[in-house]
């Protein structure tokens, strides 16, 4: 079904590779993420250390590989969580309708009005820097977009004759939502997923870059970029590799999203199925 674009295929390939490396980190990484090679601190890329070493002599490639775990984990799981909560919330709100819908959407409006990056910073710092804090902060602000999207879709689809027919046959609301409506919005949800994962990765790396996200000794790509930033003048490779990893991953997700949208989103004008 994908004669479409080379870029989507390449992106999917790249993302699969990065995920595989992240999952298999202990087996692919040449060193552990905390082993110090004290004779080679701040080394430039060499055969021993393909991406060089940081100021404590830790191998950057290995730290990048372990960092991929953190970055991807946060990106994928906050988005999945937001998608789950947003879908359930939006679907219930739209399906029940009336005053409940009104009330539920007021809450969404409120969360929408918050300056989200500020809230993310606030929550992360207050919850303690770490995977849990970043996870909670990102999830709390990102489910509302999904909720709005799903609500709109469900409102549209629930008026379709086939849904009316199912209701006339006596199907329960849960059954209608799960069996009749959900399959219809699945495409849009998958497209949303591929566009929101890079946003989460971006937010996490930004937080970690300014020193508020993942705390050492654990490191995401953002933390590594922050390490490199302090030494940028003479050791630019230390920030170059993490930046490149973040950039390529986000780029791939965006290309993949573009490709998926053409295939899966009925609202896309370019759809050629």
């Amino acid at each position, binding site marked *: 079904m994908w004669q479409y674009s080379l870029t989507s295929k390449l992106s999917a390939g790249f993302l699969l590779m990065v995920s595989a490396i992240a999952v298999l980190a202990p087996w692919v990484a040449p060193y552990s993420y905390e082993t110090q090679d004290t004779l080679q601190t701040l080394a430039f890329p060499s055969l021993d250390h393909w991406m060089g070493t940081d100021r404590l002599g830790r191998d950057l490639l290995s730290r990048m590989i372990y960092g991929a775990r953190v970055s991807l984990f946060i990106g994928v799981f906050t988005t999945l969580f937001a998608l789950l909560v947003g879908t359930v919330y939006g679907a219930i709100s739209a399906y029940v309708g009336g005053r409940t819908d009104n009330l539920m959407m007021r809450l969404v409006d*409120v969360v929408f*009005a*918050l*300056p*989200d*990056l*500020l*809230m993310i*910073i*606030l*929550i992360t*710092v*207050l*919850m303690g820097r770490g995977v849990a804090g970043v996870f909670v902060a990102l999830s709390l602000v990102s489910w509302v977009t999904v909720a709005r999207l799903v609500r709109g879709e469900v409102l549209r689809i629930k008026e379709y004759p086939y849904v009316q027919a199912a209701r006339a046959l006596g199907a329960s609301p849960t059954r209608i939502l799960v069996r009749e409506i959900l399959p219809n919005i699945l495409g849009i949800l998958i497209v949303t997923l591929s566009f929101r994962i*890079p946003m989460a990765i*971006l937010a996490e*790396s*930004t937080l970690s*870059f*300014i020193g*508020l996200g993942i705390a050492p000794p654990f490191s995401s790509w953002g933390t590594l*970029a922050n390490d*490199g*930033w302090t030494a*940028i*003048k003479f050791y*630019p490779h230390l*920030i*170059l590799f993490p*930046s490149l990893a*973040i*950039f390529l991953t*986000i*780029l791939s997700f*965006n*290309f993949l999203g573009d490709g998926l949208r053409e295939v899966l989103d009925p609202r896309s004008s370019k759809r050629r199925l």
Partner: protein
Amino acid sequence: MLRFIVRRILLGIPVLVTVATLTFFIMHWVPGGPFDTEKILPPEIKANVEAKYHLDKPVPLQYLLYMKQLFQGDLGPSYKYLGRDVSDIIRDTFPVSFTLGLCAVLVVLGLGVPAGMISAYWQNSLLDRSVLFVAAMGISVPSFVLGAISVWIFSHHWHWLPPALWEGPRHMILPAFALGAGFAGYVARLTRTKVLDVLSSDYIRTARAKGLTEPVIMFKHVLINSIYPIVSVMGPLTAGLITGSFVIEFIFSIPGMGRFFITAVTNRDYPLIMGVTLVYAVLIVIANLVVDMIYGWLDPRVTLK
């Protein structure tokens, strides 16, 4: 028009109150206060300080006290910058952040709109593809990556532009570019789509048929008619630029509000956190209002109510 403005401002008030309330409770929700420093204060002194700032009272009461003070237009004193009021700090740092945001908006429009128009005019050409590719890269590159790399290239390597601080127009170029480039990518794509739309419409064919020159068609007819969707995304975009600016302020050591926000959060400087968050929220509300006004002014079919 006046009624519209007043109405929107009144509608903004509950939003701001909610932002204030949520921020306040999130802030107090987790243990650890502004005076739990590494250097432990003697208990009597700590008790005294906390009594001075009402921190010994239950949180809901503190909230009421704060809101009362807020409605009188007083943001309170900073806990960490002794002797300075939050409003003083904001007065010093706001113009910096605002200028940065404005420069970034110029970058977004100055790069995005022309790129989109060029791309659409020569659709499917090599130029078009290059613009699309660069736009896709721009959307995907985090502003801190762009900032860091451009500092290395233009400051450390070529010594063309200063790497940090905020002392004149030369200091604004790199930060504004780093902040605006990503959004410029969005605007370029958006402009391209809309311009393509307009180019295939009947009135453009009529304009060509009656022999108008291409520049007149492009600027007088196509651009004016393509500008609406761009204006309507400027609201969320400005919000993104405003809240995104703290990373750039961090990278370039710019003394703006964002930097103060970060230190305020780490220090648990409650009034400063509240103050800066509220200023950001007000800015976002105003940005949306202004964008809607421009929209109504540009497009006679839209009535503001």
